[in-house]
């Protein structure tokens, strides 16, 4: 390959990199054997699962309340929301589980979601992301914002807005 062609390739690649700017950063986590992602902008913190106290007469997707440094925060089972089984369902007090709680802040709402494990952080670019329109082609599910393509995996990005709308609806 002549020097001239090589230079052009390098230049094209550089241009290529500039084109694919970062859309947002996301955290990827596991539920059973599936990966899901959530926009880092909404993530307040990740904590180890601590005692969850179930509120009587509420929807089973609401696992209960936690005491987070003096604040009381509702915690939901993302598995139950997404139609999976969750053995935490219906327990009056959940404790001693090796799982994590993602603390999410959306507008004025602060809430937690129990997930199995944390996989990794990822920068989402135009290159590796397919937005809502893509999903809408084959699904009406408002719980997802889009799909992240990472290596050979397709990871659903949870729509925080859609999720809160759904939880308000089923309350």
């Amino acid at each position: 390959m002549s020097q001239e062609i090589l230079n052009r390739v390098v230049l094209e690649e550089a241009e290529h990199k500039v084109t694919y700017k970062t859309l947002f950063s996301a955290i990827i986590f596991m539920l059973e054997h599936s990966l899901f992602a959530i926009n880092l902008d909404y993530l307040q913190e990740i904590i180890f699962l601590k005692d969850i106290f179930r509120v009587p007469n509420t929807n089973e997707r609401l696992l209960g309340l936690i005491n987070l440094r003096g604040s009381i925060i509702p915690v939901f089972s993302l598995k139950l929301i997404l139609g999976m089984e969750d053995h935490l369902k219906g327990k009056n007090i959940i404790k001693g589980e090796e799982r994590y709680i993602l603390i999410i802040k959306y507008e004025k709402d602060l809430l937690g979601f129990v997930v199995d494990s944390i996989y990794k952080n990822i920068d989402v670019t135009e290159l590796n992301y397919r937005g809502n329109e893509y999903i809408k082609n084959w699904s009406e599910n408002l719980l997802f914002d889009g799909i992240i393509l990472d290596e050979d995996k397709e990871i659903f990005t949870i729509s925080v807005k859609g999720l809160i709308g759904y939880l308000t609806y089923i309350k």
Partner: protein
Amino acid sequence: MDLSLDLKNDFLTEAFELVDSLEKNLLSLEKDQTNEKSINEIFRVAHTIKGGAATLGYNEIKELTHLMEDVLDLVRKKKITLDHSRTNILLQCKDEIERMLLEREKDNVYISEKTESLKKALENIKKSAGLSIEKKSEQKVENVEPERKSQELTEIFEFIKLNNFELSTLSELVSKGENVFLVFYEFNENYEMKDVAPFQVYALLNDVANVIKIVPSLQELENIFVKKVCFIISTKKNKDEIERKTYLSEMVNKISFYSVNLDLINTFSSFLGKKEQETVGETIDKKAPGEKKEEEIQKRGLTTIRIESYKVDELLNLVGELIIAKSAFTELYDIIEKVENSFRMCLKEFLSGVSKLNLSRDNKDNGEKNLILLDSFNDLFSLFDNYRENIQKLTRISSSLQESVMSLRMVPIQMIFSRFPRLVRDMAEKMNKKVEFVIEGVETEIDKSIVDDLFDPLIHIIRNSLDHGIESPEERKALGKPETGRIVLKAYQEGDSIVIEASDDGRGVDIEMLKKKALESKIIPRELVERMSPKELVALIFLPGFSTAKKVTELSGRGVGMDVVKKKIEELGGRVNFSTAKNKGSKVTIRLPLTLAIIQALLVVVSGMHFLIPIASIQETVIIYKDELNYIDGKLIFNLRDNLIPTVSLKEYFYGENFTDDKNKRIYCIISKFKDKSYGLLVDEVIGEQDVVIKPLNSKLVNSTGISAAAIIGNGNIAFIVDVDKIISSVYKTG
């Protein structure tokens, strides 16, 4: 100079308060034209706002208040009377000023056509009086060129403390032909915004002169009010012009001018030289600056301070945390006390047993060891005693602290009540009704967090009274009632609650019409409506979409009414009651908790979970045998001192479990009062009373019937606060 944010905020805060009092006084003046106190107060308010606005360059406010002041001056001088339409114009001016202030708060300028039309209306009032307003500058000003006696000059020099550099600057300016003056302003101590008066004068002086020095300095003036302030100025203008420009009649008592010429500068130079010589070995009775400042503050008699409400909330949160920590210590102490008692028993038995058995061959040796052991335990027990005393001390202190902080959150209900007279007046006018609006108990204090949310429900209730309750003057006359209707808004404290009553002497609610409406609306089955008692029928007004209004008016009758009021009050943790009598009037009674932040509650256990029952709703706690409980018509009931008590098992209510499932033969029953009737709540275990900080649940995401909020208890666990009224009313359908 940094006239800055502080000055702006001070002005806006004061101005908002003043505007409120403007409305109140205008309304009372309208009722009683001879009320000189009110007219003077209104005049003072308009003048104060004008002064402040002029200083900050808020011209739109200055111009409007200036015209208002002119009109009010005519009223004060009895050249015109304040009839209904003139009061209306002044009230609208007040609204405009309020809007202008709100915009200034956001650093915007409010411009509207309405302001211009109001200005014209004010001008017309002035013209109708056929008089020209006396110019302020014509007011008598004490302006004497004082005789410069040596003693007086020394005093002046002591006051202004000029140094060599300043003297040479003055000398230079005088040589250049500038007019240099020492201008002494004596400010009015009784003036509402006296703190900003020197700054106002400074701003005005800046337009006409060059200010060389101010004594005391502006920094000092920002901290304390000083009655006499000297401005050293150089100007091209003469002293009359300066005086005319800067004489603010309400805030300045006196202005004295001293012309500075070369002779005076020489005299001051000689004073300076003399003073420098005397400095050595001189003993002066000087107070430390801090001490002086403190004295000044004391002189000003500062008894109140302004504080941002979020700081009080933060403080309350901290007190909340302290109470949780205290509860943890108290709980720990209870455990320690139990352990200590059993330990004492064991020790007693052990020691007496050892001495009786004589197990060891060397008794003497063992006896000594036992004594050492006893001493060690006695030390430990005295430590426990010490701990108990300290816990008691902590409890006392935290209770006092809690009370004090809670009182910081309390504000007089006047804050919202004061907004109603004007609204009632305007609404009554729109509806061509005559109403006497009476407010009672304005000093009643209420939790600040409730106040703002209370306005909408109250205005709704009062609007209903006016629109549907109070009849037209003709109708009232025909009914033999006085033409003027009466609406009373009253607040008072009763135990742990605040009661607000809104009553009227209007037509009341026609029960027959209610029944008819209920049948027409088809919200409730016909058979049920037919069976309803008058009390039950009256309660229908709280149903969504149920309106008794014959016609929809601009003000009410759209059916979005009392249900919203009820919902809002219940959200605030309160209750609403409605009573009515045909042609006699109606009364809405709102009962609210004294505070929303901390409650005393009984900690109980149900199915292994902690629940809190507010002490305010508990009558007594009894232990009963399970076989004393019977099901009648599917509802639990038991006999307490010959009274049948309808009962709810919380185990069943919250978890669908049968209370007979566990092996205990006896069960705790909490007796609560609801609507003058006693009800029982069955719980598994009673732990004890606790002060808890209420943590509201996010109602958007968490909605549990029977749970009103949550709280963190001593061990860090979460307990749920039981909504006793809701549970009873849902189980026994008491509405």
